[in-house]
């Protein structure tokens, strides 16, 4: 391995080409001629934050309806073009954004971008497909209702972020999806879809200038002066006591547990310390300290791990485990003990050394595919990290100290104030 290869294989200002079109669309392109394909990944500002309370799931419903028919093509024509070429394109929604993603052989990139533009600019939301899709979404919710892991996760979010967009499911509830009309989709699209805050990353066997001109051709005319602006989010309040909920699902063999607390937002100064601390707590090796205690030593669970999710306004710090129903309380107690230890004693320097080496060493692996690169570049833009972030990243990681991790742990984790949600057999409870 040569040093040159390392430097040039990591995306950075030298090979990420960024351009803002006159209507506000930000494009980022990175060429990779090793594979004859192209990947796109992007976001627009239309997220579930705009969902009316009684119509939760509206952003998601709108996003998945975009390709059900346009002024230029019906549903079958849209997908015939894509699928015949072995290409894919899809939309989804999160709290802040509608996301888009697709891939194609490079020879089919013009078709892919044209399909993307047509779906975003000209959707017609045909009545027939509205009804059909609603049935599909409702069936998805019925399946979710039986999924122990999804139910525990949903209960966790609701308890951690009460009456906050982060606490509402992006795919809504049965009654809120049922309440959505076709006109709601039309209105949501008119108010919240526009070029102003759209970001698209293109990675593959293409030249940046070709991508820029293709987007200019397909999207140049797009304007939406009536685009609604986002309201400020409600404050996220820290937990005052431990909240415990168990959702009873009969006929299940395993209980899924999701427990934890608030975490840092992506722009918080302690983000990286929390992330590295989390790696020690429940990721590194075979799921870190918690994996070691719950799975390796106690043999209680097939999985027991932790994660920090950090968004624009806030974040969560979660432990997830799947256990035999009889072992639920025991596993929760073991996890609480580990959280207590994590916030009362600094991690060992050797543990931090391990996780720092892991973070730095795995960077090339996370960037080995076009889609991995595209998603990473999208995050650079989305969280204003700078195009040279990956070049600075090893130093940023090395600068984190055990003391910073302890402070981050103490700032967020309090074993006396946790959300503990579980779903599985046994009587439901909430306190």
């Amino acid at each position, binding site marked *: *391995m040569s040093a040159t290869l390392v430097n040039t294989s990591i995306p950075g200002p030298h090979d990420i080409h960024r351009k803002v079109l006159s209507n506000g669309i930000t494009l980022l392109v990175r060429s990779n001629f090793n594979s004859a394909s192209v990947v796109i990944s992007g976001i627009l500002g239309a997220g579930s934050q705009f969902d009316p309370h009684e119509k939760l799931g509206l952003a998601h419903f709108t996003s998945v309806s975009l390709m059900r028919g346009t002024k230029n093509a019906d549903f079958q024509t849209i997908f015939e073009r894509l699928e015949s070429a072995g290409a894919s394109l899809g939309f989804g929604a999160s709290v802040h954004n509608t996301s888009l993603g697709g891939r194609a052989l490079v020879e089919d990139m013009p078709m892919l971008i044209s399909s993307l533009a047509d779906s975003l600019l000209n959707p017609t939301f045909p009545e027939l497909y509205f009804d059909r899709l609603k*049935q599909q979404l409702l069936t998805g919710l019925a399946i979710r209702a039986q999924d122990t892991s999804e139910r525990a996760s949903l209960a966790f979010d609701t308890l951690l972020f009460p009456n906050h967009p982060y606490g509402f499911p992006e795919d809504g509830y049965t009654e809120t999806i049922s309440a959505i009309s076709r006109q709601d989709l039309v209105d949501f699209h008119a108010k919240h879809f526009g070029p102003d805050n759209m970001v698209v990353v293109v990675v593959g066997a293409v030249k940046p200038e070709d991508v820029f001109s293709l987007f200019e051709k397909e999207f140049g005319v797009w304007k939406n002066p009536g685009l609604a602006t986002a309201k400020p989010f409600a404050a996220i309040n820290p937990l005052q006591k431990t909240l415990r909920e168990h959702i009873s699902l009969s006929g299940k063999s395993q209980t899924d547990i999701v427990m934890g607390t608030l975490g840092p937002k992506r722009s918080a100064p302690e983000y990286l310390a929390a992330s590295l601390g989390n790696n020690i707590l429940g990721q590194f090796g075979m799921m870190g300290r918690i994996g070691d205690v719950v799975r390796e030593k106690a043999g209680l669970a097939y999985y027991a791990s932790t994660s920090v999710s950090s968004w624009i306004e806030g974040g969560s710090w979660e432990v997830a485990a*799947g256990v035999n129903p009889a072992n639920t309380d025991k596993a929760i107690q073991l996890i609480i003990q580990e959280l207590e230890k994590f916030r009362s004693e600094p991690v060992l320097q050797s543990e931090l050394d391990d996780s720092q080496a892991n973070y730095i060493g795995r960077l090339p692996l996370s960037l*080995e595919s076009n889609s991995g690169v595209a998603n990473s570049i999208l995050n650079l833009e989305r969280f204003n990290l700078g195009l040279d972030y990956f070049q600075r990243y090893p130093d940023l990681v090395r600068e984190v100290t055990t003391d910073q991790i302890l402070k981050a742990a103490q700032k967020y984790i309090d074993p006396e104030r946790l959300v503990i949600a579980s779903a599985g057999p046994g009587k439901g409870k909430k306190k």
Partner: protein
Amino acid sequence: MTDQIVSFNLNNGLKILLKEIHTSPIISHWVWYRVGSRYETVGKTGISHWVEHMQFKGTPTFPAGVLDRAISRDGGLWNAFTHLDWTTFFETMPADKIDLSLNLESDRMVNSVFDVEEVDSERTVIISEREGSENDPLFKLEEAMQLAAFKTHPYRNEVIGSLEDLRAITRDDLFQHYRSYYNPANAVVAMAGDFKTDEMFEKIRQRYESIPAQKVPLTGDLREPALQKEERIEVTGPGETTYIEMTWRAPAASEEDFFIFTVLDSLFTGPSGLNMFGGGGISNKTSRLYRALVEKELAVSVNGSLQATLDPYLYSLTITVRPDSSPEHVLQKLDDEIARLLDSPVTQAEIDRAVKQARAMFVYGSENITNQGFWLGYSEMFSHYSWFLEYVKNLEQVTADKLLAKAREYLSPQRRVLGIYRPEENPS
């Protein structure tokens, strides 16, 4: 990027496949063993998967906890999988750290400890893994379908094993299974990434050559006769959603028929991806069955599954029934579509489309070094590494006539198992 794959055999029977790829400073190293549920006997189901778990519990050189720390410290990605015909272990590492992976894999081919306490602790972990799967209605349905589709072949058993067997298997059973199947004569080392072939071969030779070959237990010919009449099964459980599965025996991956089936599956339910284990596919909204079932408001989704296996396995359809429809309506329409496939040849345009789709999947699947390492070894488990290289070319040989003949041969209603998962009445 070079497309050249170099193959070596050591005297102890170990096969080594190397492919240089210099696009990124990483190497993916896979070790494949010909052992999985296909090699298991009555009362010992799940033993191959359990042995795979025990391979993470340490050797005298790399005690438990040291392995994962060492790999993770170097930024490596590692995991293992057990399936019907094989068990595989892989590490994708920064290229300059690959020695660790080589040391680890060659060591645990022979030196794993199988400590009694670790065996007991892992028993509950695996039972927990099984219980997690049981939470999924489709796992329950599929388990019942496999038992109905094979009467004697070990493919009838779930890879994870039955609860009864998981409770009964002992440390000595596990160790014996390990000693029988984990040896160079039963293994393939596959590697893709940023290395020089001659240097890498030497590194591998140094580590593996001294491991003695052993006799691998013979399984004999396990194949069983075709199903003679349709079997219907019903599974009930919690939920509100009804699922249908229909399954037929499929060709083995090494047969020409497998490629015909791949085209058939592509136009029937959409193309499968060529990322690891069929991932990385695309939507299937223009496939015949989506049009017939989802577009006609009978189902909310339809998927097909065709796996590359050593012996003939299964071609399966999974359909999620719309709540305002019924399994009977879905079945009627499904039978119409199967009849259409058996009555008249598909068009050349449909075949060309399936080939183009496969070409795209092939390009996507070749993008990632880990996936390239995967395919080198995976294809050896049921055929030869050239299977993957010639995949698209073989699909191009499929004709409408051949497809019609094979569809008639395999997809007869008398040779299928039909399964329905029906939600139980809600007790509340």
